[in-house]
């Protein structure tokens, strides 16, 4: 179980002047800019849950993860991992968690992959039986058996990421922190990684905290979403409720005759927004307010649609809308 209470991290950044004179001044003056990377957030993650921790670049996701796994010490507030504060009892917590930073490998660059695993086996004091069982499981779900004997530096990015994931799961952690595990991966590798995370969660009941910019990851894996922006939580709840935050939004994309345009088309009701994109007409409406059937009839009868695609709003669209609203509000204040 992860408990985060009023967690805050402030980074101090020295203010540097421009040019040579500025540099000299920086040597003597110590003025700092304070950056509140994480600003008073609280949440609890129960055992066995997969949480999507999302937000724009620089929202404070990685900083939170680093505090949860004991790399960074909070400026204020607390984190408890199964009742223990990671930045105080680093080693005790380290035994219970696994961490992957998608942008950095934790494997030893020059030695064969399997040797890295053997080192980890000793560091985490994994018994021979457990080690064999886990290697079988991970070899299968992550498909890493083929390149076990290769030095890590010769692996492709996809292979390396799978190896890193395997390394983080080797000691059967209770909690897994995955910071952008699918960054730069092709669709097949992404799919493999998702399957592995799900298999691990199902087989061992591992809690997973996942940050990603790929909304497909989120839709496939996470029942719960925490949305972070500028260090504060904007949304924390089930994926489903986030999806219907702006209503049960549906879009109909229509192929229509050339003479029909958005501005001149007959209206059905003010609830249905009509726009044009790529020579097609897009109807956007809340299906709880305007019946889908009615909208379809309108599309064929009044707009003479020849083809039609019905789509639900995606998590990505919702998040985008929320972040845009935030940015607009912020711009107004300034």
């Amino acid at each position, binding site marked *: 179980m992860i408990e985060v209470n009023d967690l805050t991290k402030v980074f101090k950044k020295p203010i540097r002047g421009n040019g040579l004179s500025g540099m000299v001044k920086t040597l003597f003056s110590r003025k700092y800019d304070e950056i509140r990377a994480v600003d008073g957030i609280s949440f609890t993650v129960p055992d066995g849950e997969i949480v999507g921790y999302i937000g724009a670049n620089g929202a404070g996701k*990685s900083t939170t993860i680093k505090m949860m796994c004991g790399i960074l*010490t909070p400026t204020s507030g607390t984190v408890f991992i199964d009742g223990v504060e990671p*930045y105080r009892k680093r*080693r005790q917590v*380290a035994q219970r*968690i696994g961490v992957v930073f998608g942008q950095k490998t934790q494997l030893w660059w020059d030695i064969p992959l399997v040797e890295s695993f053997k080192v980890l086996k000793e560091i*985490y004091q994994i018994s021979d039986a457990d080690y064999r069982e886990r290697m079988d499981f991970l070899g299968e779900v992550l498909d890493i058996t083929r390149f076990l004997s290769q030095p890590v530096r010769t692996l492709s990015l996809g292979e390396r990421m799978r190896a890193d994931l395997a390394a983080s799961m080797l000691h059967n952690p209770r909690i897994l922190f995955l910071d952008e595990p699918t960054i730069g991966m092709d669709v097949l590798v992404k799919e493999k990684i998702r399957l592995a995370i799900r298999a691990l969660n199902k087989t061992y009941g591992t809690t997973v905290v996942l940050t990603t910019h790929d909304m497909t990851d989120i839709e496939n894996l996470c029942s719960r979403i925490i949305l972070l922006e500028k260090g504060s939580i904007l949304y924390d709840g089930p994926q489903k409720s986030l999806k219907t935050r702006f209503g049960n939004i549906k879009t109909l994309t229509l192929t229509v005759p050339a003479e029909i345009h958005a501005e001149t088309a007959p209206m059905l009701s003010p609830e249905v927004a009509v726009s044009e994109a790529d020579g097609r007409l897009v109807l956007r409406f809340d299906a709880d307010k305007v019946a889908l059937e009615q909208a379809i009839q309108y599309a064929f009868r009044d707009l003479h649609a020849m083809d039609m695609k019905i789509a639900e709003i995606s998590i990505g669209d919702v998040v985008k809308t929320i972040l845009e609203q935030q940015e607009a509000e912020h711009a107004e204040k300034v």
Partner: protein
Amino acid sequence: MLKKYKPFLRAGAIDTMAYRFNILIWAAITVCEVACMVFLWLAVYRSSEGGIDAEIHGFTYREMIAYVVLTTIFNFVTYNNDTLWNINTDIKKGTVGNYLIKPISYRGKFAATSLGNLLTMTLMFGVPLYAAALVTLGVLGFLPGLSFPAFFANLGLFLLSGLCASLLNDTISYIFGILCFYTSSGWGLNSLKVTLISFLSGTLLPIAFFPKGLREVVSRMPFAGMSQNPVLILMMKYDLKESLRCVALSVAWIVVLELFAKLLFSHAVRKVTVHGG
């Protein structure tokens, strides 16, 4: 608990082999350096009041030459770890986080690596170099202090003091490395460390040659145990009591410095900022 550190011990032992070429270059440079030192000391003794056979601060010129040769071998075998640089790299590249999320102590990892290093160096280079140097110097009569069979018992004390020296060096290196958390750069700290150690450990000049006040202070500091004392123990310039006192002093310093390192690390780790990603 200590089993966790076995892979680092092994890595330290194996890594040393990877630098064989460096070691050859080092050997070439060192032979020249030792020759310079020998001629320098000969000149010093010749121009002294008592002439070449004078005894200066307890050293005859023969003993001084033996001291220079043995100190060079000792430093080579004992000090080849890169703890400071490795910490510096960990901080610069942000890889320090990789160790902070593992259930091992950062200090323990470096101590194990460094011991692995010492083990390989002692077996691979230490044994043949010491043997060759001791036989040659002994036959030439440059080691008047040696007596048998006491020498073999003394060898145990020497090995122990060598182990202490290596640990002291690694701890000091680690402390300077941790200071990189504050300075974000290892260059200055490394030069400071190297200068401090080569001067205060008696490598440049035996501590007996220092002015009285300074000598009193330096001989109580940890540095003498890092080079001068082990070599003088090997040369049997110290009696048993003095040898034991030196080893005890080193052990005490190791404890003090390790405790300090622990405090420093727990303060420094709060300063960690791993940016990006």
